[in-house]
């Protein structure tokens, strides 16, 4: 690990001021990913700005039934929050499938959104990686890519975003609030993470001097009937091969509202708009689910080892919607 300067910010204003004057600084939240990456020297900031004392640790109700989640709420606290559990059960479920209890106790909401990919070649400094070192190439293409993207990848990068929480947030129309010395911005979560294109090193629409301060969830009655299904190689402590965040509302056998997002398939939490379009208003049957799943995955391309995800994602979408139909949402 490279030596770095450490400063602790007492409030948001001080934090954003500090980062505006430090050219190569990083905010430190839970540190569960950043510190790992610093140890591997994938990240090598000159300055660490500790934001853990900032007053961004509350979950508060918004007029109209939505919630505002402070960026420093710990993952474990968020998952256990009664309002989250009753109004957005899939979010609680998604968080609890992520990482380990110890990591969730440390990890923050803002940090979770900014997690970086677990691609082997991104972590290994001797490998070619356009995300870590633009212009060097991509060793995952033609290498070990079983965990990699089947949607939205490019010739320069096929990495996936590892977060579970963000997949649930994508399904929930969440909005991210960011702040800098230039003011406050609100970014819909689905627009926050970027597909790699030619610039896989640019992962989000967050500017270098901006701080995530909150995530807002709009009131969404359909979310009360929702599930998060994570498919992985072991029962716990593994990243998703494929995950599905879904909410479903059915009246008289027809789908009146639906939210669907996928994890483990792309460089961003993948909101399944095409599937949603086909599901909306259609009969709530397995056949409808299949068609919608197939349409969403139609543009998918497999690599040497991950083509199974295309089939797996469709099966998991169908299974999750079926379960919502028969058993209702997560408790």
């Amino acid at each position, binding site marked *: *690990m*490279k*030596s770095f300067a450490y400063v602790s910010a007492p409030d948001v204003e001080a934090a954003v001021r500090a980062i505006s004057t430090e050219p190569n600084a990083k905010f430190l939240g839970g540190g569960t990913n950043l510190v790992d990456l610093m140890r591997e*020297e994938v990240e090598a900031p000159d300055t660490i700005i500790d934001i853990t004392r900032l007053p961004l640790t509350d979950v508060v109700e918004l007029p109209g039934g939505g919630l505002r989640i402070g960026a420093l709420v710990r993952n474990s606290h968020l998952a256990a929050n009664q309002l989250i559990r009753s109004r957005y059960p899939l979010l609680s479920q998604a968080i609890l499938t992520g990482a380990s209890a110890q990591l969730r106790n440390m990890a923050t909401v803002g940090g979770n959104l900014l997690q970086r990919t*677990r691609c*082997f*070649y991104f972590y*290994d400094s*001797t*490998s070619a990686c356009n995300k870590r070192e633009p212009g060097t190439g991509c*060793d995952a293409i*033609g*290498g*070990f890519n*079983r965990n990699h993207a089947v949607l939205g990848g490019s010739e320069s990068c096929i990495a996936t975003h590892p977060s579970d929480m963000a997949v649930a947030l994508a399904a929930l129309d969440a909005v991210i609030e960011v702040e800098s010395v230039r003011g406050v911005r609100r970014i819909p979560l689905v627009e926050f993470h970027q597909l790699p294109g030619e610039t896989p090193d640019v992962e989000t629409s967050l500017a270098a001097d901006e701080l995530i301060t909150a995530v807002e969830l709009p009131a969404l009655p359909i979310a009360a009937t929702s599930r998060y299904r994570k*498919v*992985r*190689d*072991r*029962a*716990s*402590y*593994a990243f998703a*091969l494929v995950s599905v965040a879904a909410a479903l509302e059915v009246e008289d056998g027809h789908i009146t509202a639906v939210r669907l997002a996928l994890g483990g398939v792309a460089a961003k939490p993948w909101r399944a708009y095409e599937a949603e379009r086909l599901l909306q208003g259609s009969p709530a049957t397995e056949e409808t689910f299949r068609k919608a799943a197939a349409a969403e995955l139609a543009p998918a391309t497999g690599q040497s080892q991950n083509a*199974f995800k295309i*089939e*797996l994602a469709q*099966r*998991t979408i*169908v*299974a999750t919607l079926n379960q919502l139909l028969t058993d209702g949402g997560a408790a």
Partner: protein
Amino acid sequence: MTQAPVRTEPKTTPAGPYVGRPMDRVDGVAKTTGEAKFSAEYPYPDIAHAALVHAPIARGRITGVDSAAALAARGVLAVITHENAPEMKPSPSASMLNMETMAVSGSVTFLNTDEVHWNGQPVAIVVADTLEGAQHAASLVKLSYDELPSTVDFRAELPNAFPQKSSMISVGSAKKGDAEAALAVAAVSVDLDYTTPMHNHNAIEPHATTAFWDGDKLTIHEGTQNVDWTRKLLASKFDVPVEGIRVIAPFVGGGFGGKSMLWAGTILTALAARVSGRPVRMMLTREGVYRTVGGRTPSTQRVALGADADGKMTALIHTCVTQVGNVGGSPEQVTSQSRHLYDAATILTEQKQVSLDVLANTAMRAPGESIGTYALEASVDELAYKLGVDPIDLRMRNEPAKNPMDGKKFSHRMLREAYALGAEKFDWARRTPEPGSMRDGKWLVGMGVATAFHPSWQLNANVTVRLSVDGGVLVRCGFHEMGMGGATAQGQIAADALGVPFESVRVEYGDTDLPIGPGAGGSMQTASVANSLIAACEKLKKSMLTLAKKSSGSPLKGLKLAELKARDGGLYQSGAGETYVSILSRAGRPSVEVAIGSDTGLGAVTGQVKFMSKFMLDNRRWMKAASGAQFCEVRVDSDTGEVRISRWVGSFDVGRVINAKTASSQLRGGIVMGIGMALQEETLVDPRTGRIMNPSLAEYHVPVHADIPPIDIHYLDDPDPTMPAGILGVGEVGITGVAAAIANAVHHATGKRIRDLPITLDKLL
């Protein structure tokens, strides 16, 4: 190492022997309270820390070293490369006369050569005041390389596989009759190919060394499975007298074979300490372990079985190709069990290797049988289905009375009984054989079974036992405790042999200052130590009786040892007798000590010769092995192919069980590791570069708690009369048969045969 408080007063022995009881391990409290010190935890004033620099190429030469930035970094004491390292001796070549050569991990002369032989080879070691300083400075050392063509792809190299020559400890090929011809005409047959990937041990304690030189004397704290061999190889490497080296390893945080050899990290830490003149500590990073300590070889295997219409085997063929490094490693006994498990009319086993520009492979829990039983036992299941008979029934029809290859006697074989017990406990009768026929909602339920098998061996052990006038018993032997409960088991054996309370026995181990003990490996440590310990206790009782008879007032006067029973802290014939304490007090002796075996001089040579001749004689006379039956129930998600284990019963013939608690834990641990092997574990070696790409516990999956069902362990507890204390060994047999039982259960659940480990969901979609 103090293992139990020494009692000053004799305590009445509870009814019945200690051997066989489920006793708490004596080091349990020290470990759970953190009092137990591991190799990286020994404080030395002025200690320095070290970190390795690894080559990023598979083969080539170092053309330049730029240490300037590293040397300029804060707190850096030394940057040692091939340009400035003092010369060390090359490692000795393998010889049965110098057993320690078995622990040579490879031929590379680290930091005395500009050659690179594998991707990850250590090419520099950096010493600094702090761990962080050393690790950061290591990243600043810049080396340039001239890369040479390399061969790193196991699969691509298979056409160049060469046959293995047989040695005393490894059979390259063996045959009985013409198995290929018998297979060709068999009424029913299967002919199947299997592949298994490379695995790494992933002991919870990464390899750690703390080294301190005083002139030519070296004290080294080293988490090793063999303190004696480590000492001897270090003496030869640094060309110093072996007596001046002390290796201390009272606690080893898991080994599984990964700490049996002398690897680069140990040598280079000792070198760093010599160069820097400071005590140096280096605990490898997890990545460092993957890059510098070998793992289990990948394999391809062919198993072909022929049978007549009644299921009697007429042909059994098992061949394999495994991997060694061009600079180290050895063949793995993949076909071992196939020479002993089935009474086939013809048998052919054949082992081949490919040699690659990769890190040496090494022993990992049940080397050979772990992956060999997967292929054999999955094939037996396939044959059973083809024949339409129950897989246990098929095994029983082919259960041999004698060793199938040569008619040697089994010293102990209770596989029939193990299957009967396991089937009852598992409720095998409930199983409906049709694949996919047992469903529970979305879950496809499958039940599978397979045979576990591991040969039983024994090594030499030197032991001393001392009885003191305070009633304490001190057992000293340089064996190893890496979590198995060795000291507890030996304490139980000594307490029974001498008739003293368990609490009065103290067992010292894990130190070259002690009499030379066996390495912890091959499931043979407990039996090896027990053999000498029991002899020592006999000798001690004789000495005590002789001493007693020297005093006129002894109630033992005129009695022979054979007439006496060791109990209640002394020797007794019915009511009459005397405690050891009383004998010693009367004689005015503080203690009496006896020794079995000698570490040096003629005694050591005699011991070695005696051991080798017994080894060869036993080998000619008996086939000795632990065996068992593994039963499992799996559940496969019908939507996603996720496999979860829901039930496990292991039924074993391991001879006598010394400690029912720790033995069960070992067997259970083996099964857990087998579940990992079956479903998750795979070291990903990039075939383009030879580089391991998942060197971390986040990316190399081992089972987590949620993956493991309750594991029900049963054993027959019937002693093998040819083994010390009747022990057949429990360290490795637990992992064998596990992957096959799971593969067979997955087939039962889904109708799919997966012949390529690990069985991940993508193979089941």
